[in-house]
């Protein structure tokens, strides 16, 4: 067969045969479906050969790659085979045009992969739904439990007070029962309020009524209010605010709620300490609010649990309160476009810092109605 004939045959097969020397320089080219000048370094034309130099020096060198695309654009794929002829020792490289089969093959791979990815997404969504369902069930169980405890106190107390008895109750006993029932009623009301807030935030119905408010004034007022919390009797409560107003666009009632939750949590954390301290700091720069205590602190895991509704970070230790405070704080801070960071470790106290979007404290910031 003449050289022209062999070129025609190779072209009809979509083939190119290239003879290489040991330095991978092109010495002879048969076929024309690609233009490869003789004398060039084949690695420049076919970068797949980089790194294979040692392997190709072997007397029985042979490698094949069914689909190779080269270049930074989506160039046409080729099949690559390199083999050293065992008799002559000559190194041949073959390129075959695989455009048609590669597109079909690629489509198959694409379909298979897309299906697998979609299936994995479905499994993930199903697992998430199951998890959410379990969380909801656990949540309802918690709600029932939290409702039952104060209800029992009210039912028990009222039953004793209303029951006719031969010997009337001591006036102090009557007062004690009445106080217990009142305290339980207040707790129930707080629990219901918290549940409504939580539910509204979950369903996107928690609305912020924003206005320009003075954080200095709010911080002072709420810190002073917290001095009346019974557990705060032996706690040093400090309020560090600048001597001037710090204006921010926010829902003042919700900011007060956030602060009240954080400060009362901090007071509870140090209530049993000798020398318990809680410091509330307003940094006007961002602005940010920090509530820090010198209590027992928490580990990262405990913080994660405390942020969950009804989360009790310490097994067997129940804190006074609804167990929803921190979850609501989280949602209210997020709704204000802020973030809350906890700096704590076991034995190192806890500092909760809320940072607000600086845009909110700009003079020209406009109040808006944010809905979660």
């Amino acid at each position, binding site marked *: 067969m003449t050289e022209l004939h062999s070129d025609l045959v190779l072209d009809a097969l979509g083939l190119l045969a290239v003879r290489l020397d040991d330095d991978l320089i092109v010495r002879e080219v048969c076929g024309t479906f690609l233009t490869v000048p003789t004398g060039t370094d084949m*690695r420049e034309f076919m*970068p*797949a050969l*980089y*790194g*294979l*130099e*040692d*392997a190709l020096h072997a007397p029985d060198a042979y*490698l*094949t*790659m*069914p*689909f*190779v*695309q*080269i*270049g*930074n654009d989506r160039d046409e*794929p080729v099949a690559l085979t390199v083999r050293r002829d065992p008799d002559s020792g000559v190194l041949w490289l073959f390129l075959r045009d695989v455009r048609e089969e*590669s597109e079909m*093959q*690629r489509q198959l*791979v*694409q379909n298979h*992969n*897309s299906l*697998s*990815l979609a299936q*994995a997404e479905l*499994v*993930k969504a199903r*697992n998430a739904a199951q998890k959410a369902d379990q969380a909801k069930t656990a949540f309802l169980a918690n709600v029932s439990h939290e409702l039952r405890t104060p209800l029992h106190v009210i039912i028990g107390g009222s039953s004793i007070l209303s029951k006719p008895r031969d010997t009337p109750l001591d006036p102090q006993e009557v007062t004690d029962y009445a106080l217990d029932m009142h305290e339980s009623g207040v707790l129930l009301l707080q629990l219901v309020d918290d549940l409504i807030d939580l539910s509204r935030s979950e369903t996107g119905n928690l609305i912020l009524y924003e206005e320009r408010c003075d954080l200095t004034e709010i911080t002072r007022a709420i810190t002073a209010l917290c001095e009346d919390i019974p557990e705060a009797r032996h706690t040093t409560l400090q309020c560090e605010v600048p001597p001037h107003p710090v204006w921010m666009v926010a829902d003042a009632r919700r900011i007060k709620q956030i602060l009240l939750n954080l400060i009362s949590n901090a007071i509870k954390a140090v209530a049993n300490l000798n020398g318990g301290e809680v410091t509330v700091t307003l940094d006007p720069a961002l602005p940010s609010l920090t509530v820090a205590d010198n209590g027992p602190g928490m580990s990262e895991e405990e913080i994660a649990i405390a942020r969950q509704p009804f989360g009790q970070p310490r097994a067997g230790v129940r804190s006074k309160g609804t167990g929803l405070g921190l979850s609501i704080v989280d949602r209210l801070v997020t709704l204000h476009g802020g973030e809350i960071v906890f700096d704590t470790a076991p034995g190192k106290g806890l500092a909760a810092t809320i940072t607000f979007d600086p845009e909110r404290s700009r003079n020209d910031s406009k109040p808006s109605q944010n809905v979660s």
Partner: protein
Amino acid sequence: MKTYKIVVLGDFGVGKTSLIRRYVLDEFSDEYRATLGVHLYKHADTLAGEDIEISLVVWDIEGAPLPSGQTKRYIVGASGAVIVGDMTRDDPFSAMWSAADMFEEALPGRPLCLALNKSDVAVIESPETVTRMKRRYDCNAFETSALTGDCVTPMFHDLARSILARGL
């Protein structure tokens, strides 16, 4: 200047092609297009802050949860590997372990690095696994995002530095 072969390995759909195209072409597409066989990208670069020029051929290798026989043939002669995992998946690490084990067994002493990809939408749920992998393969891990470009170039540069440091 010597040209180094770098292979990018991992399960399909984890973002290998996107990472490479972000690094080489500084582009991103969120359309998923499966890679068939291998796609090679030649790229010349300068290591940040060191004025060292490098020439790389980056091999974008068809993804699979477990490396196939063909994958093993593709990695012959590689100077280093990027092992990519999609951090949005329930178990992003199994395929990474398999790919890293295969690479280390085939090419002992060659460096690799871990791309913890899709960091723009995912958090790493098992940092202890990342620590174990880093220790096991004596490598660095990068929280990458082909979408934002976060850590993509630093990761390839880190791998190139490891290759040069080992005199490969």
